[in-house]
Structure formats: structure tokens, C-alpha cells
């Protein structure tokens, strides 16, 4: 068995003084796809943001290790360079900065960190062409300012496109399905599936089971009130679909996931 990529142990975190995560344990190994489901306010997105290092979230207890290193000690940009990617639920608009310029800076920052030579403009553009095709994104979007004036679907597609370019070891998808119609969902999920590989792990955070019809996880965890209350295989999703979250909310927390 391979050594874990991500190890979350007894993670407690609060936002503005309110404790949201109350002891999360989670282990993700290379190549695995984990889904985290849960009702609104259960702490799914908080878990995603704490791993990525978003300001405003305070870790009060517990550890997060990434390839054995203390992830919480790293600033967000270093986590990204180490291979943690967060596909945002609500990607921000960055007026005046073109997508392609932004992505070139990002890709090169990451390559530099990994001791690889930086791409020049020509190399980068050919990479862009290749990845754009993979996730079916209009090349026109690549030239526009980052997310500015993008539709909801275009923003999500842009996130997956960025993920393809940045080639992360761990991709966290934060409610990537929210606000997508069924066609957009199919395209986005198709992009994600293209990017599945034995070297890449994924943490798919979602409220609805339907995304998991397209992105089939290896493991599924149910988060309720800041704790993982149940872990299992993909069949757990169907059970949830049928019974809702209520039947789990009354149960005691599960023993450490996996």
C-alpha cells in the first residue's frame, strides 16, 4: 500500500469564533477519489478552505499533513506549489488581468518551485491549446480577464481548465456542481474524469449525489456538524439519496474514516 498523500487528524477549525470543524479525520492516498457529502452548514467547504489555507479560518486543534509535511505551517501559495489545488465554488473575477497571463504566472511559479524550467510564451501557449481541448473550454475565454463576465458554467469550466494546467497532486473540488445545468455538469465532470490518474488524488465536496453519477468516487464520507459520521464506498451515496441526511444526523460519529 502506498503512503498517504493527505492525512487530516482530529481537525478543529472555527470561523469568526464559531467552531465549524469538530475533529475531522481523513486519509487520502495517491490516486484515490474521495467524496465529502453533507447537509448545508456541516463544514464541507470549511474543510476544503482550511486545507487550501484561506484567511479567516482558524485551526484550533489537530494536524493536516501533505506527503508527511505540516501543511498548516505553509502559506497558501506554498501549498499550491506543493500540489494542492482548490476548484472554487465561487471563483472571483480579476478585472484587467488576462486568464492566459494569470495562468502563465501560476504555472511558472509552480514549475520554479519544483525545480523545472519556466515555460516561455510559445511553450505555454501550446500547452494551453492542448489542455483547452481536453476540458472543452473555448480558447476565447482564455484570453479574457480572469472570470470577468463569465457565466457560472464558464467559471467552473475555467477552474477545471486551470486544474488541467497546474497538474496538482491533490485537487479539491468545492461544490463544483452547484449552479450547473445538466449539460455543463456533464462537460465539467468529463474534464475531471480526463484528469483522473494514479498520480492525482481528488477530494470532491458536494451537496448532491448527482455529481457522483459522473465522478464516481472510491470512497465517500458524510460530514455532519463538523464530524465525519459515516464513511463507505460509492453505494453510500445512493443510500443518502434515498434516505436524506436526517437518518445520519442522529448517529454517533464514525470511528476514524477508513
Amino acid at each position, binding site marked *: 500500500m502506498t503512503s498517504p498523500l493527505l492525512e487530516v487528524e482530529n481537525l478543529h477549525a472555527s470561523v469568526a*469564533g464559531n467552531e465549524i470543524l469538530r475533529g475531522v479525520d481523513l486519509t487520502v492516498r495517491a490516486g484515490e477519489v474521495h467524496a465529502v457529502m453533507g447537509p448545508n452548514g456541516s463544514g464541507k467547504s470549511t474543510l476544503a478552505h482550511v486545507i*487550501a*489555507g*484561506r*484567511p*479567516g*479560518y*482558524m*485551526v484550533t486543534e489537530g494536524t493536516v499533513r501533505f506527503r508527511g509535511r505540516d501543511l498548516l505551517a505553509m*502559506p*497558501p*501559495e506554498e501549498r*499550491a*506549489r506543493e500540489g494542492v*489545488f*482548490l476548484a*472554487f465554488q465561487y*471563483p*472571483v473575477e*480579476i*478585472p*484587467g*488581468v*488576462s486568464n492566459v*497571463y*494569470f*495562468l502563465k*504566472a*501560476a504555472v511558472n*511559479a*509552480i514549475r520554479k*518551485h519544483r525545480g523545472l524550467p519556466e515555460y516561455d510564451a510559445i511553450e505555454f501557449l501550446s500547452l494551453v491549446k492542448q489542455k483547452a481541448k481536453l476540458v472543452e473550454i473555448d480558447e476565447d475565454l482564455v484570453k479574457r*480577464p*480572469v472570470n470577468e463576465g463569465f457565466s457560472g458554467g464558464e467559471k467552473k469550466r475555467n477552474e477545471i481548465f*486551470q486544474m488541467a494546467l*497546474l497538474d496538482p497532486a491533490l485537487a479539491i473540488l468545492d461544490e463544483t456542481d452547484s449552479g450547473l445545468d445538466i449539460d455543463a455538469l456533464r462537460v465539467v465532470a468529463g474534464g475531471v474524469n480526463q484528469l483522473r490518474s494514479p498520480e492525482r488524488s481528488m477530494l470532491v465536496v458536494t451537496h448532491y449525489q448527482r455529481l457522483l453519477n459522473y465522478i464516481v468516487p472510491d470512497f465517500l464520507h458524510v460530514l455532519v456538524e463538523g464530524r465525519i459520521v459515516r464513511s463507505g464506498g460509492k453505494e453510500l451515496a445512493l443510500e443518502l439519496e434515498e434516505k436524506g441526511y436526517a437518518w445520519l444526523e442522529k448517529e454517533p460519529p464514525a470511528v476514524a474514516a477508513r
Partner: protein
Amino acid sequence: MESVKRDNASVLELTEGEYKAGFVTDIEAETIPAGLSEDVIRLISAKKNEPQWMLDWRLKSYRHWLTMKEPTWQNVHYPPIDYQAIVYYSAPKSRKDAPKSLEEVDPKLLETYEKLGIPLRERAKLAGVAVDAVFDSVSVATTFRAELEKVGVIFCSFSEAVQNHPELVKKYLGSVVPHTDNFFAALNSAVFSDGSFCFVPKGVRCPMELSTYFRINSANTGQFERTLIVAEDRAYVSYLEGCTAPIRDENQLHAAVVELVALEGAEIKYSTVQNWYPGDSEGRGGIFNFVTKRGACRGRRSKISWTQVETGSAITWKYPSCILQGDDSVGEFYSVAVTNHRQQADTGTKMIHIGKNTKSTIVSKGISAGRGQNTYRGMVKILGKADGARNYSQCDSLLIGDRCGAHTFPYIEVNNSTAQMEHEASTSKIGEDQIFYFQQRGISPEEAVNMIVNGFCKVVFKELPMEFAVEAQKLLGVSLEGSVG
């Protein structure tokens, strides 16, 4: 909450970056005592061997200045200036045996330019730029003059122009900015130390970009530059002005006047990168920059274009303007103004449309960070006879952090119903979520701010000559260093 506190601490740490051009060159200055009187003006004039008419003009200006009051309408706040505590003349000692070439220039002076990243020699040779370097108050190095003379372009210090081209100076001095114009212009007219003079005769396209580097370097010395640029019929000239100054304990007053005259079909492009010492993070010791810049498009189809990147000074008070007198004349104003720490800027332009079918464009980008206050103040005035006048104005503000401010005061006065006016404005803020987005993609917060700011200023930067644009981008990065944590 602790992580929030930590963020704030890093903001503080980062915003307290030292001013990169902070050092004082030790050159024995020939300085007269502080204070202002008719005697002081006579002394300045005598030291410069000026003819009687020049002294008379100074005295006339001084007497008028005495009747004026310092303006208070601007949106900047500063302690009262004691005009009797200012030294009104200071020249580097080496001036007596004025250098004929760069080799004769005080090596320490050249060293100063080196430190600033302005290797004069190399710049002059490699970039083909003629440099009229103003160090304190007297020009010490003028290059490429001969080459310019070949095509009839006069480019020299203002003092030299008074000696060698009195008829031109008499004809144009004060013709755009009269000695009575405003408090600071009147003061400048009385005590101006030196500056640049440029004359491009009929039909001549100036073969190179002209450039002046200003530098305040003597403690407590007011800097009163006077610049006059005249482009005759169908002439063209592009002029670059760059400023930087060393660290200073007390506030320094800087009241420059720039006058531009464009005759029929002439074009003047005036670009500024201003980086006077902005004061420390509490605003102590920065330059007070009260500048009057104005251009007159006298002839038909003439054009004057101002481009400015203002990153320095504790206080900036500056409205480069165009008087569009000739029919079909064009005025442009492109501006980036940055205020960080406790800097205050009240800047903008005036476009006065007098002639028919005159056109003006205003693009103003204000960036506020720290506790900086940034005000755009602009006036577009269409006079009754200016049929078919057109103006396009765009004023955008960018805020970084939540302790700074942006203010916009656009004045529009239209007296002709055929005029077409367009005004666009926006205010945006670099949000924590934007910075985090960059970080999540592996880009540092500093680089994130740089990228956003450069994107915001792109339209103005592209108006600058190439090498200046690069310098301006660098300067912006330094000015905003760590304004976001």
C-alpha cells in the same frame, strides 16, 4: 482570530518597506540663508547673472505673490508651510567651473545617478537620450546638445536659455501660466532656480526623446523648477521627466511650473514618472509637491499629450492641463496616481475647449493603499464658440485595504449644445478573496497585487515610451510593496 492577527502583522511588516532611493549625496552646496524677501530674489538673480528684465519679472511675481493666499480647496491636509524657513537657492559647488562634458561632472553626482539606476553615461550613449540633469537647482550635465543643434532644436537649462535665447524666453515665459496664475506658480515665478528649456523650430521632428532627471538633494531647499517647451508649426517633441529624491527629515516644498506651447500642427508629448520621497510610513519627511503644468494648443491641429505616473511625494497637487485654442486641436491626459501609507494626492486635469472641433481624452487611474488618500479633480470646459467639441473622460479608482480613500470631483461646464461629452467612472477594491485566488494558484500576494495593479494601469502605461513604461511598472511595485498581506 489569531490567524487574522497574524495577517495584520504581516501587512504591517510588508508595508514598512524602506524608500528605495533614500540616500544623501555629500556635495558642498552653495546655499543662501533661509527666508524670502526682495533682497533674496535679487541675490538669486545676481548669482545667475540674469539680465534686468528677468529680475523685473521675478520681482513683479514676488509682489503679486505677497497679495495672494495659499489655496485651501484641495482635498489634502498638511501643517502650515513657513515660507520664511525655506532656503530658496542652492547650487552644487562645482558649478563655478561648470563641466563641459560628463567626465568633468563630480563623480559623486554620477554615483547618485548610478544608485538610482540611472546610469547617465550608458543611458545617454545606449538609449540615445539627451539628458539635461537637474541636480538641486542648477543643471550640471547636458548631453547630445550638438546633435540637437544640427537640426535646430534648442535643449538647455532654463538659465542658459535666459542668457543665450532671451528673445524666445521673453516671448513665451508666462504666456501659458502667467505669474499671477496661482499662489504656487507666483512663488515659482519669483524664485525659480532652474529647469529645462526646449525649442523645436518649424517642421522639425525632434530626433530623440528628451529627458530630464530632477533631484532634490539639499536639506531644507525648496525646489522651484521652471520648464518651457515650445514646438513651432508642424514640430514634434517627446519629453520625459523623471524624479526621485533622497530621505529627508523635514518636509520639502516643491513648486514647479511647466509651460508648453504647440503652434499649428505641432505635437508635444510630455511624460512624467514622479517618485519624490513620500515620507516614512507615518508620513514624516515627504515632499510637498505643488505643481502647475499647462499646455497651450495655440495652432490649428496641434496636440498636447500629458502622461503621468505619480507614485511619490507626501502631498501631490497637480493638474496638467490643456488649453485647446486652435481649431481641431487635441488634448490628452493619461494618469496613474498611487498613494500608500499616509500619502495624499489631489490630481487631475483641465481641458479648456475654445476652438472648433477640439477633442480631449482623460484617463485617470487612482490607486490607494495603506492610509493613502487619492483625489481625482478634473474640469472639462466647453466654451460657447467651440462647435463640435468632444471629450471622453474615464476615472477609475482602485482601493487596497480598508483604511485608504478615493475621491472623485469631475467638473463639467458646457456652453455649446453641439458638444459631445462622455464620462465613465469606476471604483474597485483588491479583495482578500482575489489575493487568495492568486495564492491558491501558487502566486505570492506581492505578485498578485502587482498583476492586478498593472492590469488596472495598462491603458496609461502604453502611452509611455517603452523604457519609461518598464521603470513605471517597477516603481509601482516598489510603491505598493506589501500593501496586502
